[in-house]
């Protein structure tokens, strides 16, 4: 087995605030739109919300769509358990996010942008609105017309899914739409829309500032640049860290673990659990032809030491999913309930341990048949926890 001994590299690009947004904005607005898109594409920046869609391509597709109106939405509905990076970005460097939104507006031809702010982050609404006022004033001064509004979320995890988010903005229940059409063709109010994660937008700012090459020099093939990690659980140093992509989980645990780490949940409830024996072969980055297993992540890294019961962890995730399932499609609505009931039945001894295999099958069915990312990703945590901690599920 090959292990990549990629050293853990801390970087400070996102929170470094040189208050140069005015220069970056004016400079970008003088550039040709295609030039900006091409530089984003060549930087190989991928969406930092977790799904990893190439950002440059998203902007390009939206710009190319015939339409009279287009929108840019900043997805700040940060709801994945264990993720708290966007909250920090919006508190510390909001003007970088706003600048990136405006440049996106310039590139795709949108004059209106929205920030979909998680309901739990209500306390950010006022400071953000102040930042928006300052920003819009400057835009007016330089004769660039762009307005930004905040839309408050109302406490639904599913609204982080981009089509559910737009449903919610239109005043409906946050139930995901069928894809295609994708938001780049048919988004908010039926118009072509870019939906970008808060962190993705800040990375575009870095690229506007330093150029695509500097960004691309960071990270590894298929996973360029840096990423913010929200580190929690059994670690002596919880918090938010900006690290280069492509590190091995072993290096990560060596740095952040408490010496007794038995497993790490990468990517929150919808991510994967990696047990100790797989630390060395697991690489944190987007899927590609890297050696070993590569795991993408929205940035949540939760460490568990040997005092933690993985049954309780799984129980918590399933409880979360069945509560947050929007109820629209059957595989997810019923599947989540059955998985939760099932693991308890096995634990109580009412079902034989082999029943867990049936449940894994069920989660796989959900992966294929659920309408959106929520139902599809339940299998990730479910099978990775059950397969690796079988005994803890049964006894």
């Amino acid at each position: 087995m090959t292990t990549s001994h990629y050293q853990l590299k801390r970087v400070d690009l996102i929170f470094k605030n040189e208050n140069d947004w005015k220069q970056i904005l004016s400079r970008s607005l003088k550039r040709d739109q295609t030039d900006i898109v091409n530089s984003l594409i060549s930087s190989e920046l991928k969406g930092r919300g977790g799904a990893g869609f190439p950002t440059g391509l998203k902007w390009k597709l939206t710009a190319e769509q015939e339409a009279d109106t287009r929108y840019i939405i900043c997805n700040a509905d940060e709801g994945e358990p264990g993720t708290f990076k966007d909250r920090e970005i919006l508190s510390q460097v909001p003007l970088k996010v706003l600048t990136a939104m405006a440049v996106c507006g310039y590139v795709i031809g949108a004059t209106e942008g929205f920030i979909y702010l998680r309901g739990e982050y209500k306390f950010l609404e006022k400071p953000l609105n102040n930042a928006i006022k300052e920003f819009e004033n400057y835009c007016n001064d330089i004769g660039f017309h762009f307005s930004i509004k905040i839309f408050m979320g109302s406490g639904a995890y599913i609204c982080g899914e981009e089509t559910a988010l737009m449903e919610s903005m239109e005043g409906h229940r946050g139930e995901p739409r069928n894809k295609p059409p994708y938001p780049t063709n048919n988004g908010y109010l039926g118009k072509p829309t870019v939906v970008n994660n808060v962190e993705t937008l800040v990375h575009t700012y870095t690229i506007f500032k330093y150029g695509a090459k500097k960004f691309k020099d960071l990270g590894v093939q298929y996973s360029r640049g840096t990423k913010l990690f929200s580190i929690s659980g059994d670690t002596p140093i919880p918090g938010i860290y900006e690290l280069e992509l492509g590190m091995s989980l072993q290096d990560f645990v060596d740095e952040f673990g408490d010496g007794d780490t038995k497993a790490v949940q990468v990517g929150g409830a919808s991510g994967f659990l990696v047990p100790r024996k797989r630390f060395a072969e697991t690489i944190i980055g987007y899927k590609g032809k890297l050696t070993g297993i590569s795991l993408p992540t929205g940035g949540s890294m939760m460490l568990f030491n040997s005092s933690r019961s993985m049954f309780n962890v799984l129980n918590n995730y399933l409880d979360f999913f069945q509560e947050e399932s929007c109820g629209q499609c059957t595989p997810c609505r019923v599947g989540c309930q059955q998985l939760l009931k099932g693991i308890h039945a096995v634990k109580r001894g009412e079902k034989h341990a082999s029943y867990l295999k049936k449940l894994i099958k069920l989660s796989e069915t959900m992966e294929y048949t659920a309408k959106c990312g929520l139902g599809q990703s339940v299998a990730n945590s479910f099978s990775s926890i059950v397969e690796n901690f079988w005994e803890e599920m049964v006894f």
Partner: protein
Amino acid sequence: MPKIKLAEKTINIVKEICAKYDNNEGELINVLHNVQAKLGYLPAEVQELIAKELNSSVAKVYGVVTFYSFFTMTPMGEFPISICMGTACYVRGAEQVLDEFKRQLKLEIGKTTEDGKFSISCLRCVGACGLAPVVMVGEKVYGRVSPQQVRKIIAEYQDGCPSS
């Protein structure tokens, strides 16, 4: 639930808010946020009125109200206590903290004390996992809460809002 008759004042508040959003059905969620901020909750009668004002159906309004966890059809306490049940908090003992709150206040989740002071609810990750387990009272965040601290936290609010 017995039907309540809305006071003239309440009706006007709701109508005003709807008008502020041009009685536009697409602004339903903003309207609901505003109305709940004024009235504290969204009883069925208020939902009926909103539906009428926005030229929408009661089913649609009710569907939205019940979909989002921020909207409530029962009044919350003056000091709503929310215990985070996100994974980081859960594995670090949020359930024991929740049980202690329930025991001390003799209260179930989603209910309000008789004097209207406290209500208990569970949250799904407030984005403060580094401080797990986390409890919020109103907008104030308490980090690394142990069951032993519960009595002290409640006491802070017994005689009104704490100064800090």
